[in-house]
């Protein structure tokens, strides 16, 4: 018995010691802003352009005063460089965390190019400071967001975070990203005035800028021309009919049914997998619904529009025009091959319609989704082949009287609240590191960098000067021939993509889809929206699988919202299931 008592006593003492150590560590532990842990997980790759020591060294000249942004880029860069040099800093390390389709690499390399250009200014002015960049790429934007959330408290996050604007609200409310309002104001006239207003608005949270737009896009419906021809359907004026609201989702259904019944395609419609945001929530807008009420600041659960969305997809799936297990399809193995190829043994495409995005246009030119029957091998499509295969149009209106839509999910440059954390004297110099990070974003937003990104990734420019470059024949030819003035590293990284995608056809495509932005909607930037969007995905999966009727799915979501105290406070449920409406 005595030995048992001793063992228990020993255990208690050990636990107390450990708790004491943990408590001491927690009480003395600096916040995320002061953490200096380097980004070791997830692994990052860094450039090797550093040529100077990063250890602080004493300075002999009179120290310049702490810089304050003026709105004059070169002046600000020089002032920051001189100040850092005076503090003995010769190397500044930054890491960018970015995400997207395989062609959107300029979300990382835009900042590499910015670093290169700033380094050049410093070099020309005899300032011995260099920016060294590292990068981390994750193909899923949601996964990158999850990783960023858990990394910030540990101080292992990237200094720059390039992701969808929908996360701004949550990241800003948690204090994870920097309020750059005062910086943006300084550069308003010289830079941000040129940006499209709705995109700048999307970069705000509670009236303050927390981000800078990097790109945007439209989500066209792609139509396989060969399938339409097989049906004997003349689609030459279809985009116009959609634009005028004369071709609705009811007509989409009829055409999809016709394509399948005539044996011209296996499927009538294919769309994204996994999540409902952003592609599928377009249905809510197409049926005249809304997701957010700016007057109340609340999310809106628009019952009639959501019911109509579910009923539309239910009809497609139940009549085998859309795969029931669409939400679990594999992008590379199933979705893209189904869209770009012909079905086995068929002379025409596998699907009539595809709810896609502008970036797919160039993705199909760089990824080997197309099965070439002449060689028996997979390869990317050429721009010419794409023109031959695909027609594109807006997301049609739900009912007659509704309007066609598209949905944009602008990507944003964001600066982590602890940006610069991996550099010496962070506590004293953090404001300077933050200013430098902002200036890098300013440089990465150069029209040329933005335009290159648009051409190679099929995204729409965020500023007028970049859009103008896409109409500049000389500039286009320079890009095609890679005569653009870029750092050797960035040039090398993007050259293979440029070779495949920089073509006049693609630039024409961007010009052709740009009108869609007049019809665009943005999903709400609300802290609770990602949660609601997650519930939408579960519900639509059940509807497609047939385990819930549209009515059951709407009621299921209402129950889910009401069961969650936080969500029920943030969401306003409006309207009721329409009784005198049916689909198709």
């Amino acid at each position: 018995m005595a030995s048992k008592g001793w063992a228990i006593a020993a255990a208690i003492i050990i636990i107390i010691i450990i708790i004491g150590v943990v408590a001491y560590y927690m009480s003395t532990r600096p916040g995320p802003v002061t953490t200096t842990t380097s980004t070791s997980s997830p692994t990052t790759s860094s450039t090797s352009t550093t040529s100077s020591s990063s250890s602080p060294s004493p300075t002999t000249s009179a120290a310049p005063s702490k810089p304050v942004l003026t709105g004059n880029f070169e002046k600000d860069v020089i002032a920051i460089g001189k100040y850092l040099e005076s503090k003995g800093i010769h190397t500044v390390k930054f890491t960018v965390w970015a995400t997207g389709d395989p062609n959107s690499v300029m979300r990382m390399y835009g900042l590499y190019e910015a670093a290169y250009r700033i380094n050049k200014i410093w070099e020309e002015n005899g300032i011995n400071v260099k920016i060294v960049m590292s990068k981390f790429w994750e193909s899923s934007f949601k996964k990158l967001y999850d990783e960023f959330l858990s990394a910030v408290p540990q101080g292992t996050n990237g200094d720059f975070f390039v992701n969808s604007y929908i996360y701004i609200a949550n990241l800003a409310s948690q204090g994870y990203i920097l309020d750059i309002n005062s910086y943006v104001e300084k550069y308003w006239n010289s830079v941000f005035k040129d940006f499209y207003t709705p995109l700048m608005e999307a970069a705000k949270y509670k009236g303050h800028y927390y981000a800078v737009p990097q790109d945007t896009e439209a989500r066209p419906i792609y139509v396989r021309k060969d399938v339409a021809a097989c049906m004997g359907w003349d689609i030459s004026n279809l985009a116009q009919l959609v634009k005028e609201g004369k071709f609705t989702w009811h007509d989409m259904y009829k055409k999809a049914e016709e394509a399948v019944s005539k044996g011209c395609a296996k499927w009538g419609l294919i769309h994204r997998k996994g999540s409902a945001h952003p592609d599928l929530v377009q249905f809510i807008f197409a049926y005249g619904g809304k997701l957010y009420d700016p007057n109340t600041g609340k999310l809106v659960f628009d019952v009639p529009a959501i019911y109509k969305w579910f009923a539309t997809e239910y009809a497609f799936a139940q009549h085998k025009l859309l795969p029931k297990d669409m939400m679990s399809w594999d992008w590379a193995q199933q979705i893209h091959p189904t869209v770009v190829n012909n079905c086995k043994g068929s002379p025409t495409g596998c699907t009539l319609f595809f709810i896609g995005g502008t970036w797919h246009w160039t993705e199909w030119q760089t990824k080997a989704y197309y099965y070439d029957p002449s060689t028996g091998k997979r390869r990317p499509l050429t721009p010419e082949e794409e023109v031959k295969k695909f027609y594109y149009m807006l997301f049609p209106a739900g009912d007659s009287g509704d309007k066609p839509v598209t949905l944009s999910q602008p990507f944003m440059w964001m600066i982590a609240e602890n940006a610069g954390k991996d550099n010496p004297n962070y506590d004293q110099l953090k404001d300077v590191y933050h200013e430098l990070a902002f200036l890098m974003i300013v440089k990465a937003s150069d029209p040329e960098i933005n335009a290159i990104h648009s051409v190679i990734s099929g995204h729409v420019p965020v500023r007028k000067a970049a859009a103008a470059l896409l109409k500049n024949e000389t500039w286009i030819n320079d890009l095609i021939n890679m005569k653009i003035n870029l750092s050797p590293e960035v040039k090398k990284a993007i050259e293979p993509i440029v070779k495949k995608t920089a073509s006049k056809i693609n630039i024409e495509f961007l010009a052709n889809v740009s009108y869609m932005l007049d019809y665009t909607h943005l999903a709400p930037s609300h802290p609770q929206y990602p949660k609601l969007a997650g519930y939408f995905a579960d519900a639509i999966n059940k509807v497609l699988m047939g385990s819930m009727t549209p009515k059951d799915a709407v009621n299921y979501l209402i129950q889910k919202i009401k069961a969650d105290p936080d969500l029920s406070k943030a969401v306003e449920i409006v309207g009721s299931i329409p009784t005198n409406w049916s689909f198709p």
Partner: protein
Amino acid sequence: MKIRKTSLLFFLGPALFVVALFYIIPLFLSVYISFTPMVDWNVNRYLTQFVGLQNYERLFHIVMYDPDMRAVIMTTVVFVLVTLVINVFGGLLLALATYFMDEKMSAAYQGLWLLPRMTPIAVYSLLWYYFFHSSGIGVLNSILLKLHLINHPIALGLDPKYLPWGAWFIIIFVNGLVGVSYGMIIFYSAFKSIPRELIIAARVDGASTTRIIRHILLPLTKWHFTFVTVWQMFSLLMTYAQTFLLVEWRVVDSTWGQTWALYVFRTAFTTTKDQGLAAAASTFLSIIGIILGIIALKALGYEKMILEPKGDI
């Protein structure tokens, strides 16, 4: 006596330290977090804020009103019970089979069953993702289609026709295949530690294999049986990794494939990132685990097994 106490501390100390560091403290931390409003891993903001029982009230509200929670509870009960039976009795059967095999053959056979445990979780789950995939690219579907047993691919884990059993079958199958090897190893080692003379003597007396199993092997491995049962029960209550990936990749229905442990994980890491709520759900699961553990130990006669021998040794 003093030397005995010092020796006890000396030998038990390191183990106690490890147990405290990796088991007791995380448990206390989890309970502590359940009393904070922690979301989005914002440790610096929320760790010192105290919200009392708010997370438990929210959890209760969700359990009462969320349409998926009934399925979560049912899935947890079915998953733990069925997989436990498979893991314990499957492990026992495999151990018996390999015990009576030739040594080399036995090692190879055990190695084969250990493969799922040795394969990284993501790779193992990916294998079953492609096996159970709901379309023609799924291995199971392509086999059934080739054999003309089905005309169209079936979505076993998703199609309402097969729910909830289709989803349950997949998660039980995938987890059972991993868990069964644990019982096999423990029981096999236990059988091997029984003096060989006992078996030989029984054989000489004409005992059949069944009798040897019933009267020698099983009675002498009661302790191991109790250990495997209780350990596996705890493991199954807490496990989520393979199931998470299958649900996330949408091979299994997100409602009927979600156990309580997976609900905790998704709440903390993926869906709502509400660590306060997840910690409350996790604490609840720990309490259930402790109660079930005590019941299982009582039912399996643990107290009798640890009684000191009545006679002198």
